[in-house]
């Protein structure tokens, strides 16, 4: 009986491992390609020799061209794209945190006219992803840009503005967490002479650091991974985000840039993937409230 159970266990492990190998194959393959000096689309699974040339290419270091043997520097500003993406995502995450925390606090603690209506609107609107209004966003930024050039089309400021509309989901997430913090703590602080606002940022905010971190990281990931809005709004090569830049880079000449693309995609995916794996438990908890990705 015990032996049979062990056999079943072993079989299960074997099945699962085979499945995982199949699933994770593209990732191994990409890592292998990024180190393969040939780097064309039909490269072998296991490279015959290894080289850092694709990595040098995407990091803007001098590299040896595979065909001509010249030493060159890439004309594609990959690192700038990556930096743009990180900059936009960090700014969006920070602003988003400010906007949604205060609103969530009001919705969680105060009674006021229009509260029910606000909650209902937020709940309904969070179901609509903002990319559906992409035409409107484009035209609005075009209009704003005539007066405030820093916030028009082809600017990072404009892109961040567009992302800020996505507060409802985060408000919900944070409000849910605030609801679990007992009101009595703040009330006693107010008794002791705290103002409401002090109670908010000296007591409630520190107590909810976990959820705030998750919201910030989630916003960061979603902004970083967004493709459609930056592809509409940004035009200049040096202003592109990583997602748009890499798509243009690779679709111009797919088979020749396969190796460089592999290296670049690892560079872009690794940090995001690492963050995601660290916070995936919270994300799933949060997703049972709304639903952003998936």
């Amino acid at each position, binding site marked *: 009986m015990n032996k049979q159970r062990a056999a079943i*266990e072993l079989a*299960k492990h074997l099945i*699962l491992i085979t*499945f*995982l190998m199949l699933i994770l194959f*593209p*990732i191994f*393959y990409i890592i292998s390609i990024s180190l393969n000096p040939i780097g064309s*689309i*039909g490269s072998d*699974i296991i490279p015959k020799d290894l080289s850092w040339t694709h990595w040098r290419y995407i990091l803007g270091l001098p590299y040896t061209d595979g065909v001509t043997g010249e030493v060159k520097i890439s004309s594609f500003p990959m690192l700038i794209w990556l930096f743009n993406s990180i900059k936009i995502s960090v700014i969006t995450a920070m602003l988003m945190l400010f*906007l949604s925390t*205060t*609103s*969530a*606090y*009001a*919705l969680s603690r105060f009674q*006021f006219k229009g509260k029910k209506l*606000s909650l209902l609107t*937020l*709940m*309904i*609107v969070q*179901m*609509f992803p*903002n*990319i*559906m*209004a*992409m*035409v*409107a966003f*484009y035209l*609005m930024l075009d209009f704003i840009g005539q007066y405030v050039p820093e916030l028009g089309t082809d600017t990072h400021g404009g892109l961040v503005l567009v992302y800020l*509309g996505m507060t*409802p989901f985060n408000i919900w997430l944070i409000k849910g967490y605030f609801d679990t913090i007992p009101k009595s703590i703040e009330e006693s602080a107010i008794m002791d002479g705290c103002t409401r*606002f002090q109670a908010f940022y000296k007591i409630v905010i520190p107590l909810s650091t976990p959820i705030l971190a998750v919201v910030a990281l989630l916003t960061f990931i979603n902004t*970083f991974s967004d*493709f*459609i809005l930056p592809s*509409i709004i940004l035009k200049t090569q040096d202003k592109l985000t990583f*997602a748009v830049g*890499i798509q243009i880079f*690779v679709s111009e000449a797919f*088979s020749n840039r396969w190796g460089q*693309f592999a290296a670049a*995609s690892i560079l*872009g*995916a690794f940090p995001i*993937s690492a963050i*995601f*794996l660290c916070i995936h438990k919270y994300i*799933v*908890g949060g*997703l*049972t409230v709304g*639903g952003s*990705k*998936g």
Partner: protein
Amino acid sequence: MISFKNIFTLFILSLGLFIVYKLLSQGYLLLGLVTTCLWALTTVIFLVKGAFPYRFMYPGLITFFLFMVIPILFTIYISFTNLGTGHLLSLERVKEILLLEKHTLENTPSYNFHLYPQTDTLFLIHVYNEDEQENFLGQFDISKENKSVNLKPVAQPEFIKSPFSRGEVFTHFDSLSEINFSVPERPPVKIASTNYMASIINRYELKENDKIIDMVTQTLYWPDYTSGYYTDGKENITPGFFVNVGFSNFLKLFTNKSMKKPFAKVITWTLLWSCCSVLLTFCLGIFLALFVNSKHFKGKFIYRILIIIPYSIPFFISVLIFKGLYNKDYGIINDIVFYFFNYKIDWLGNALWAKASCLLVNLWLGFPYMFLITTGILQSIPNSVYEAASLDGAGKFLTFRKITLPLVMSAVAPLLVGSFAFNLNNFVGIYLLTAGGPPMMEASTPVGETDILISYTYRLAFEGGRGQDFGMASAIALIIFIIIAFLTLINFKLSGMLNEKR
């Protein structure tokens, strides 16, 4: 008491006042009024004691309103217009542009000129005609309103100072081009370029009811509010302006011969794609969850992390990787297929295979999500339920069908609807893999076999080639809105959110 808060409030309020002033002084009445209202609201909220809760709500709500609610309303508005290439401007702007259009009269004398600055604003103009050796002089003050300047015939003049360069003339060009120069016994001329003068008239003149008349051909044009052009019945003047076209965009989608069929195909594929994506990912996800979460199974934690790796990578990267793997001639997938079947599949070029490829990639991207949520739900089912079932003599399959599945389904149903809504708008999953292609042959708009509604919207609005059609794109976006609204309603019913969360 001067505190950080007071200074901040003061700063915001004065900034608002400045913006209002700027807008109103530049003549943007409507925009100025809206901003004034916003500013007044801000003032009330930050200065009235009773409005205290709104101070917390205010920043979030305003951005939400400006960048979510207004864009949605704006999308609805655009969907009822013909806004797009050739119709990007309002009637007012088009009228302004046409009225500024200049026309150089043929068979009239033209001249060259030099401009000599006397003082900062006082200019001497030397007009000459090289063929006939004629010279004229005139003087004017550029800072004053010069409607016309009389030129006097002179003998070949000589100057001490050097004239303005063409670049310097250009810096004053706007005011210079306004001036009428009258030449004795000749038609008056205007400055046409930085060294050239000719008889120039305004091409169009404004008549009653926004009509304009062509001064050269004496034809009367009137704005046609259905086509969005100035027209004389036969010919249209470009650029056109955007007009309200009512339900025409929607009617086109459902009745126009060359749009109806592709649109039906797109909408069918969109729904099919979402359904299949949800079903496939859910089946694989729950299967894996049951597999990994069974009792006494070792290494759960490691397996769990490995399984969610595909989901943790940004979608745009995974999809682009798969695009390479699917490559018909060199891709690794076709290498394997060729090894076994001695045949290469055109993964992204054939309509059916392209759809299958999209679904396969989406399965790869999405199953870890389903795995994660079902794992969470399975763990929340208390063990006593299973014990009771096994005491009653229920087998493994019966337990799954009668206990696990119903419990999981009731918890997961709203998430499945959410996932359906997400895939409905899964632009990256389609566009980065196939770019919508392979193209549909019979269509008059840029549309392909794997296009879903959102990628169709994108291509209509932003993919050049055949021009941008913002109106039609917004109409399709509105149809997605309606589908999502319907799904939201279902979701609220399923999760009972409407009753609980108030």
